[in-house]
């Protein structure tokens, strides 16, 4: 009884899940970061790719350190990005400063729910999600975690894909500032918050770029 039930559990595990593919690092093969050319590393003794002359390294050099540096900068800049005004609106003598959240609340209170949702997802939710995902990925790589390798790779891919969409708010500020220039009737000025926010977005993009997803798969028992 016991053996047959354990067989029933183990069989799909062996055939479906535990397929282990040969990896470049185990066979002394190195692939160029730029042009994906695969070559035998120790035999050639070359330091740059013969095809595109990019420096040859097994993994992106100091990937985790760079990634932490960018992510920490993004976390620090996230505070002024949300506290400082992204733009100052003067309309018929009234002056009002807008932060990212107050913009979302304004839209929502004026019945523009879909738009408020778009801005909320792009400017608040995605940056936080990205920072969280990057921290999770880096900690799990540093702890040499063996769990959920495929899911973590997919998380990384999503982080990379979604990155640039947070720039929406910065572009909105740029457009509004340029368009609304009517002197005393109405004018919009850019705020420091917009700059801080664009730094957050750029830093998270750089962090995702410098992270090497192969490190996830390098962890061994």
């Amino acid at each position, binding site marked *: 009884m016991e053996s047959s039930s354990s067989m029933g559990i183990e069989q799909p595990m062996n055939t479906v899940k535990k397929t282990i593919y040969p990896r470049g690092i185990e066979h002394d093969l190195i692939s160029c970061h730029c*042009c994906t*050319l695969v070559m035998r590393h120790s035999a050639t003794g070359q330091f740059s790719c013969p095809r*595109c002359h990019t420096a040859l390294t097994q993994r992106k050099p100091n990937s985790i350190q760079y990634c932490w540096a960018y992510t920490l900068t993004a976390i620090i800049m996230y505070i002024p990005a949300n506290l400082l005004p992204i733009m100052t609106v003067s309309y018929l003598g009234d002056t009002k400063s807008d932060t990212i959240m107050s913009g979302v609340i304004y839209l929502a209170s004026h019945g523009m729910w879909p738009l408020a949702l778009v801005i909320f997802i792009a400017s608040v939710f995605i940056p936080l999600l990205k920072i969280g995902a990057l921290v999770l990925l880096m900690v799990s790589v540093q702890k040499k975690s063996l769990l959920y390798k495929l899911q973590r790779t997919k998380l990384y891919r999503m982080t990379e894909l979604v990155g640039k969409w947070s720039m929406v708010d*910065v572009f909105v500020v740029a457009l509004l500032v340029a*368009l609304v*220039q009517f002197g005393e009737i109405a004018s919009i000025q850019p705020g420091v918050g917009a700059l801080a926010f664009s730094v957050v977005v750029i830093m998270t993009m750089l962090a995702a770029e410098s992270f090497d997803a*192969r490190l996830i798969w390098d962890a061994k028992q």
Partner: protein
Amino acid sequence: MNNFLKKPQLTACHECDALQIIPVIQMGWKVNCVNCGHLIMRLPRHGLQSPLAFYLTVLLLLIFANAFPFLSLNIEGRIQQITLFESVLILQQYHMGMLAIVVGFTLIIAPFLEALLVIFIVLSIYFHWHFSWLKKSLKWVGKIQFWSMLDVFLLAVLVSFVKLTDIAEVVVGTALLCFVALVFVYVYSLRSIDFGWLWSHLRQWESNNQ
């Protein structure tokens, strides 16, 4: 012509380092990593003509989108009209030079450079022009592509459009129509180009020369 991948080639997935062989595939096919599903190679349906056609359209629409007024705003008879480049300049007037650089690079410089470089690369592969610049531009074009954010800007235009209709009358300029078309073509043109495949063309040249 080199319209498909002629020889199977060894590759190590760039996201999980799994070794595998890309088989001989037809145009319009794509190859995903056996281990992690990362898109390793996607061949455009019409060979080198696809990226060329798409990026020529992108270049043309980019020129139009930058040449004409983008949006204009009408408050009580006073009209404010801007082109894309002016919106960058106005940021600079408010002492937001850094922001102007970010916006200008992601919306104007990067897309233009990307389109020009891709056209240059595809033409020189097609006609076998051996420029020393070819490899460098193929190396840089992917990095530039990473920073071009035309599609994001379309969403930003929509958002500011809705925000402004409260205060004033917004008039859609010629450039905005071009820009909408541009974004759709641009998103498709991203799918029509595969840098790994373009590099494999160069490898064939080198093996022919030796």
